């Protein structure tokens, strides 16, 4: 996959990261280098090889359907910057145009 400045800026936006012009330039170069390195894996023929999900063969562990005591409302909200009526108060969701 080829990386360019536009892709870097798009990904930064998706991740809600504010990056400067210089950083965009710097990250474009750095990510391009990392991806080029990873591209080497494409030299291998992986036809018929399943993706390796974990280096050790493991499968999902299941829990029983039992309700346990968890956080109180007070504990849940303890770290919230703003609270109202037992809920997390968050800024306007859709910006006005």
């Amino acid at each position, binding site marked *: 996959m080829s990386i360019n400045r536009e892709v870097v800026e798009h990904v930064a936006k*998706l991740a809600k990261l504010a990056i400067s012009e210089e950083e965009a330039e710097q990250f474009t170069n750095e990510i391009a280098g990392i991806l080029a390195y990873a591209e080497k894996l494409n030299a291998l023929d992986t036809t018929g090889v399943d993706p390796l999900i974990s280096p050790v063969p493991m499968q999902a562990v299941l829990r029983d359907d039992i309700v346990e005591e968890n956080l109180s409302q007070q504990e849940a909200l303890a770290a919230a910057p703003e609270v109202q009526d037992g809920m997390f108060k968050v800024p306007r969701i859709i910006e006005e145009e």
Partner: protein
Amino acid sequence: MDYEVVIGLEVHVELKTKAKIFCSCSTAFGGEPNSHVCPFCLGLPGALPVLNKKAVELATRAALALGCTVHKTSTFHRKNYFYPDLPAAYQISQYDKPLATGGKITLSNGKTIGITRVHMEAEAGKSLHQGDDILAAEYSLEDFNRSGIGLIEIVSEPDIRSPEEAKEYLEQLKAILQYAEVSDCKMEEGSLRCDANISLRKRGSKELGTKTELKNLNSFRAVERALEYEVQRQSEVLKSGGEVVQETRTWDEARGITSPMRSKEEAEDYRYFPEPDLMPLELEEGWIEEIRSQLPELPRDRALRFQEEYGLNEYDSGLMVSTKEMADFYEATVKLFPEPKEVANWLMVEVQRLLRSSEQEIQESKLLPENLAQLLKLVKDGTISGSVAKTVLEESFATGEEPKKIVEAKGLSQISDEGQLREIVASVVEANPKSVADYKTGKGKALGFLVGQVMKQTRGMANPQLTNKILKEYLEQQ
């Protein structure tokens, strides 16, 4: 230009587990906000998911009930996006290896609608916008009690060809999931939600037209109306030589229109990647077969059996199996009063009317199968007339009281005593000489009038057949 309508539906259903899908918080509806939460479903760093076995079982049961192939191995992915009701900024979902694929639902006209896939995922929290709507809201409040409840998403093939078919597909889907006891499927509580994709294409064309996605569909009726509106809107756009814009549109119930939602640039770029905290889900063949063997008789099979066993027609049998509770109620009543068509008629007309006016489901009402059966026996043996039976039904429906006791307490027994009826007939005839004369000159209406007078005197309690017979005899003798 003749257009063909192409519709696909995505339905989200909350799984009826006690605990959430990846943590042990309660799934109970309501409750103090943010009181069923833990570090995991609040998206706090370091908290890890552990899959709920019951959620897997219910999802598997749903998939099997829908005729899907359940895969031995399925995997989880993270779907990444920012929204205040998604505390970790990703939703755990299934992507390229879903739980199940390739099912179908058969409509009453025999047509089958394909089901592309059934996959598991986690529910988001709930936003309360402080204002008229999300656009007007200066801020919003977040409750994470719902965050992390297990969901299945059921994606249909674009096989649906009309808004009516879409509605029937949903009704059948809901019935199947309720029969399989996978979910409550309460749209009003949000435990069943539906988004619709719709496009038009020239009839005969194989290529799909540009689709729009409809959201905010809060009832099956809303799904049907929104789709009808969109068929109209898109065909007008196409007829005037325009192009349909691919976008998400929201249904405005009050105004009866769809309008475009503000598009977000990053929309549809979810950067799915494998969930590193969950290993692949491996299901044993034996377990899948065990779940399959426990599936109850599903609505369509039950409807076919009702047609065969009870002689109901397609339409009536469809109504009788519309919910499991109604079908159970019907069969329990028929067992006690083995006249299946009569029982179906009473349930479809009178009981249905009472359910509608009290906004109840059959299982919420106080009416019992043994009481309906007893009522129908009272009508059959002539103790009460059909019209009195309706009054008794209303009372039994409201109070749960036995029809026999209601009839006794209110003196509603039909007068079937010939001697007593003769006396009443005599007095009525005496009081209405003109009608008697009319009857003699062959005016047929006169008999009806006199029967009416007998009914009036007996407050509707006179046995109508007997009254007719006695009255005719009496008049002939005059």
